[in-house]
Structure formats: C-alpha cells, structure tokens
C-alpha cells in the first residue's frame, strides 16, 4: 500500500531531532500532526481524532517525552496507550442468559453490513458451546434475504424460523420465541433487515420489536470499511434502539478500520467480535490492542515489543545491541539470536508483526524453520575462531564445514552471504527500533 507506516514517519521526524537531546513542544506538535493524518486516513471520525490528539498532546508535551532519548518511541507509546484506553482494554464476550432461559439477540445495522452472515456465524458459535440456537428471518424486505438465512442455517446446522415476507417483524419474533420455547431452544437470534439510521419508519420497526419483546442483547453490525458517517450511524442506533454490543465485519480486507474507534468512543459499547471472512467459521474475539495498532498502521509492533521483552534476556540483548552498533556481530551471536528467535515464535511470525517490514525484506531470502536447523548445523561445524571472525572463511574452510554439517558447499556460501545481509538488516532495525538506551522499548534489539 502507498502509505508509509506511522511508526516510520514518526521515526523520520525524530531522527533529526535526536542530536538535540531534547524535544520542543513544536517537535511534538509536528509528530502529532502525522498521528492525526494517520487517524484520518484510517477513517476515525474527525471529532474523535481531535479529542484524541488533545489528550495525547497533554501527556506528550510533559517532561517525560521531552527528556527521553527515544522520543519517537515515547510518542508512539503514549499514542498507543491512549488508543487502547479509548478502545477499551478488555475482551468482552457476548452475554447469554443461563441455559434454562431463552436469550434473545437482535442483529441490526445498515444495508450490506453483513448481518445475515454474522447471525449464522454466531449461531454456529453458540451451538458449539452446547447451546440450542434458533435463527429467525425478520428481513421481509430484501429480495431473497430469508433464502440466504435458510441456506446459511443449513450450512451450520441450525434451524431457521420464518413466516415469509407478509408478517410484521415483531410478530415473527414473537412467534419465533414461542417456537423456541416449545422446541427446547435457548438462544433466539433475530436477523433484521438492513436499514438506514435516518429512516424513521424502519427504525421504529426495531424500536417496536425492542418494546414488545424481552431482548437480552442488541447487536449493531458494522462494516469495518465505514467512513466518517460511522458516528452518526452508531449514535442513532444507540439513541433510538440502544446498543449492547458491536460486531465489526469484513476485517479480512485491508481497511485500517477507524470506524471501530469512532463507534466505541461515541457509544461506549464493547466491540464483541470481528468477522474475518465469508466462511461461517470466520468470526473471532475482538482484541482492542490489536485494533489500536491496526488503526495507527503500526502492524503489531507493540505486541512484538512485548513478546521480545518477555523472551529476550535483557542483559544479553543489551550486549548484542552494543555489538551490532559496532558491527562486531559474529556467528556466535548469530547462533545466540537464533535461539532467542525460536523462543519468539519464528521468523515469519515476527516479520508479520513488523509494519512495512515484509516488503523491505523481500530481497533478503529468509530461511524457513527447517533451513534454520541446517544453519545451526553449519555454524556448529565452524571452529570458534571462524565463528568470531567470519572473514577468514576461505574455500577450503568452507568445504570442511560443509562436510561437517552434511550440507552442500553452496549452502555454506549462501549462509555467509546471508549473514552479511543480516548485518545490514540489523542496522536498519536498530535504527527503527530506536535509541541508545533508556525506555522499555529501547532495550529490545532485533536479534537477526
């Protein structure tokens, strides 16, 4: 995609400022302008962005950041913390009544948001938890909506209750609950028609269902690609019907999903699940922190940092960092960092979490897990001297090593070359990951 990730941008802003040692208020403002742009590009509501930037500014202009030697990271950290606190930090499960009672759930949202598909996904989820769900076709308007629900119901093996398109939704819902009672079902999911939040007749239809039926949870289904209008949608549904929880759909696309933040901050209601595909199993728990970095366009850089913190011995990492800076990195360290890498869950996973890194590293030919094993063997076949001073590796030494490791000499050559590349990469990473010392984040240096 076209845009540089936010963390790259911030690093760039702060790169030139490092030498100054301290940041001025205007430096911070410049950085926060980038944050603001990133949020707007991500479709976070303008009003929410404004509030957000204000509260971040308040914190960031404080002494904490000004004197930090890794200001870029500090700002990112504050931005992220504020974001997570806005998104809510806990994952929330949908609330169900005890099994001996009937839980009624009503799906609602705009046209095309994904209500029908999501209803079936939820039903399937409840079923796998031992509940007895019933899907109810209350969309009497869209051509073939009931047909769609029936097919989906069949796919997840959940019964579908419908009365065609000639009855009022509230009556269909009432009859469905009776049906559930007499058939021992305990979760009734009402699939309602898509409607615009400003369509009064249609909103009244939902209000009427809510008034006449004991609905336990109303779920607003929102397309994660929604733009600035998300706040209007959410506040209208909240005002006129009341929202208990939100489900975000189509997150398997590449949208940054700023609507999530807008909705959360306007309604304060938890986002329960995210829908990530067209298969009826594609529904996942919502993780506010992940969403926060997605909106910021930072990949999962923070979970990576946490992961690294948890797994890497801080002292060793520090030492390694020093070596890297002086380009003293050798095969001993390579071996060491491979071990740490294994702890962290392997190369592919790590790279996935690095925003914008995937592309940069394309040329670098990353070894897969199996190849890592062979690399280990090659390094272990080197003498200590060779390991600490790779430049002495001449053809006859390489030949001996290849034999010892049971690999082709070409593979030894490749490794040595790769090693040089890795060194280069590490320089980039260490630049990106920040400063000379200090903060939690500064401690981690990419080991490969």
């Amino acid at each position, binding site marked *: 995609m076209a845009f540089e990730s936010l963390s790259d941008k911030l690093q760039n802003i702060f790169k030139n400022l490092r030498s100054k040692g301290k940041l001025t208020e205007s430096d911070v403002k410049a950085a926060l302008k980038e944050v603001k*742009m990133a949020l707007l590009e991500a479709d976070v509501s303008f009003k929410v962005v404004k509030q957000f930037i204000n509260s971040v500014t308040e914190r960031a202009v404080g002494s904490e950041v000004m004197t930090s030697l890794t200001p870029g990271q500090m700002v990112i950290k504050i931005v992220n913390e504020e974001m997570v606190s806005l998104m809510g930090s806990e994952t929330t499960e949908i609330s169900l009544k005890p099994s001996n009672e009937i839980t009624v759930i009503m799906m609602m949202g705009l046209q095309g948001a*994904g209500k029908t598909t999501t209803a079936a996904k939820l039903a399937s989820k409840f079923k796998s938890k031992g509940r007895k769900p019933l899907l109810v076709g209350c969309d009497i308007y869209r*051509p073939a909506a009931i047909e769609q629900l029936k097919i989906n119901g069949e796919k997840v093996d959940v019964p579908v209750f419908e009365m065609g398109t000639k009855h009022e939704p509230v009556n269909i819902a009432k009859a469905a609950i009776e049906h559930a009672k007499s058939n021992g079902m305990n979760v009734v999911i009402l699939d309602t028609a898509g409607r615009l*939040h*400003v369509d009064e007749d249609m909103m009244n239809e939902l209000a009427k269902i809510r008034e006449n039926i004991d609905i336990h949870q109303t779920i607003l289904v929102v397309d994660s690609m929604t733009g600035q209008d998300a706040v209007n949608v959410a506040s209208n549904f909240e005002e006129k019907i009341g929202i208990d929880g939100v489900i975000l759909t189509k997150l398997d*696309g590449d949208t940054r999903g700023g609507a999530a933040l807008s909705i959360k901050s306007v309604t304060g209601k938890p986002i329960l699940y995210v829908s990530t595909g*067209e298969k009826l199993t594609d529904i996942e728990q919502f993780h506010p922190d992940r969403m926060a970095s997605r909106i910021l366009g930072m990949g999962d850089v923070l979970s990576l940092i946490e992961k690294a913190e948890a797994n890497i011995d801080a002292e060793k990492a520090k030492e390694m960092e020093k070596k890297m800076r002086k380009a003293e990195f050798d095969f001993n360290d390579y071996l060491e960092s491979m071990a740490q890498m294994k702890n962290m869950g392997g190369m592919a996973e790590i790279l996935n979490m690095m925003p914008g890194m995937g592309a940069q590293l394309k040329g670098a030919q990353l070894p897969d897990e199996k190849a890592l094993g062979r690399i280990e063997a090659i390094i272990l076949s080197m003498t200590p001297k060779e390991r600490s001073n790779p430049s002495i590796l001449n053809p006859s030494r390489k030949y001996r090593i290849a034999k010892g490791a049971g690999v082709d000499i070409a593979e030894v050559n490749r490794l040595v070359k790769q090693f040089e590349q890795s060194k280069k990469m590490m320089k980039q990473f260490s630049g990106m990951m920040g400063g000379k010392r200090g903060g939690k984040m500064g401690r981690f240096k990419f080991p490969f």
Partner: protein
Amino acid sequence: MSEEKKGFFAKLISGLSKTRSNIVSGIDSIFKGFSKIDDDFYEELEEILIMGDIGVVTTEKIIEGLKEKVKENKIKEPEECKELLINTIKEQMDIGENAYEFENQKSVILVIGVNGVGKTTSIGKLAGNLKAQGKKVVLAAADTFRAGAIKQLEEWANRAGVDIISGNEGGDPGAVIYDAVGAAKARNADVLIIDTAGRLHNKKNLMEELKKIDRILEKEYPNVYRETLIVLDGTTGQNALVQAREFMNAANITGIVLTKLDGTAKGGIAVAIQSELSIPVKYICVGEQIDDLEKFNSEQFVNALFTQE
C-alpha cells in the same frame, strides 16, 4: 430539467442533507461564522471536507486550490469563498467526458465490487432503467457464491421485466457467463449485465477469477461494447480508494456506481476517487426502489452537496 429528473434531484438533496451536521450546513455556518479568511477558517473548512469522506489528500488539494483563487481574486470576505470552493471541487471532479456509449451499442456490462455494496440491487435498477428505454436486457447471475444471491437477482429480473440466466449455487461462474452470452446472442439482446460475487480486493485468487471472466467475455462475445462498473458503497471511507485501485488492476474499469447516498453519508469519496484515480462516477443510488438510480452529473452532485433542503 425534466420533471422526473427534478424529483430525483430533490431526493438527492434531501438524502444528502438529512442531518444538521452535513456538509451543507457546516459549510454555510463557516462562511457566515467567520469574519475573515485566516488559518482558522481554512482549518474549519478542512474539517468539514474530511468529515464528508473527501479524504486528507483531496481535501488538501481543494484547500490549496481555494487559497490560490482567493489570492488571485484578492478576496477578503469568507462569504465570497463559497462559489470559489464549489468551483474548486468541481474542478477536482472534472475528468472530461463521461460516456454512456453502451446505451447506443450492443454491449455487456460487468458489475464488480466488494461484498454488500449494492451490486445486485444496482443491476436490478439499471436493468429497469434500460428496459424503460426500450432495450432488450439479459441478466447473468454469476454470483454463485453467496447464499441466496441467485434468487435475489431473479427477483430483480422479475421486477424489471427482463430475462435472466442462472446456474446453481456453488457452480462455476464462468459457465453461467458462457450460457448468458449464448442467450444474449440468441435473443439478440442489446445489453447483457453480469452480476458477480462480492470479493474483497485484497484476495488474490478472487481477483484472478475476475481476469478469467474477462477472458471469457473477450473470447465468447467479441466486438461487443465493454463496460465494467465497480460498485462502491457511499458510506465507505478511505478504503474505497484502495478498492478502486485494486479492482483497476484486475479489470479495465470504465465507471463507478456509488450507492446508499440516501443516508447521512456525504459520498465525498466520489470526489476523492475522481480526483485521484480519474475513474468517472456514472451512476448514483439513493434508495432501494427500482427507480432510485440516476446518471451521475458532477455539477449536480456538487450543487446538491451545497444546497439546503
């Protein structure tokens, strides 16, 4: 303007101004609320445009354009800016000709887009529209993936009073298109419209499938005027730009259908797309009824953005 058009125009205006917070009232209040043209004024303007989904990049372009004009014309009063701003936005949207050539020739219209944007509904409306012009229309139900999609299009074919060719759910969309082309030829149809399954633009294999459909049409139905419309949901934010870009890579897109403008979304993304990608918006939709589709006219659209009910 014909009577019918006026009705639609009114609908569009009312659709675009359903809440107090829309572009219109926002813009008006800043033209009236500011006594001079300064940074605050421009900042406020920026906010309003961005809230209309016009996006950061295009908004900046518009503001830059406006600033230049203000300087050139030595304008001092915010009120006088309004006309200039409207013109600046129109300029951004001006991409020359906006042809509906497929109406005059034997043609095939391929309709594509992500899930739930309104492809099937728009096809129903378009079919009704063409039929009313006395054209012979055939629909191809090539969304064999989504549950109930075929039935949905059948219902629309019914409403529009046009023919439809469909296969089985889960079947090969290519086969349906093949059959539909055969039917279009045999029945001497003026327009064949093909409905396709919704696909997210970042799914490689689904985008490849579009190329396959393209090849079938190229081969089986040559010498027919080709039109490929991408349907975008008017409530979508900046991701619509990404969608349009990605679909451009997979198909030769000739136009956009912008739907769901009957809500409070401003559809400002249309401005962004025309400005940044130069794909013309050809139709807009303001409701779920068969006649809620109209040819797009940027002049009218921008005027509607700035007209109060």
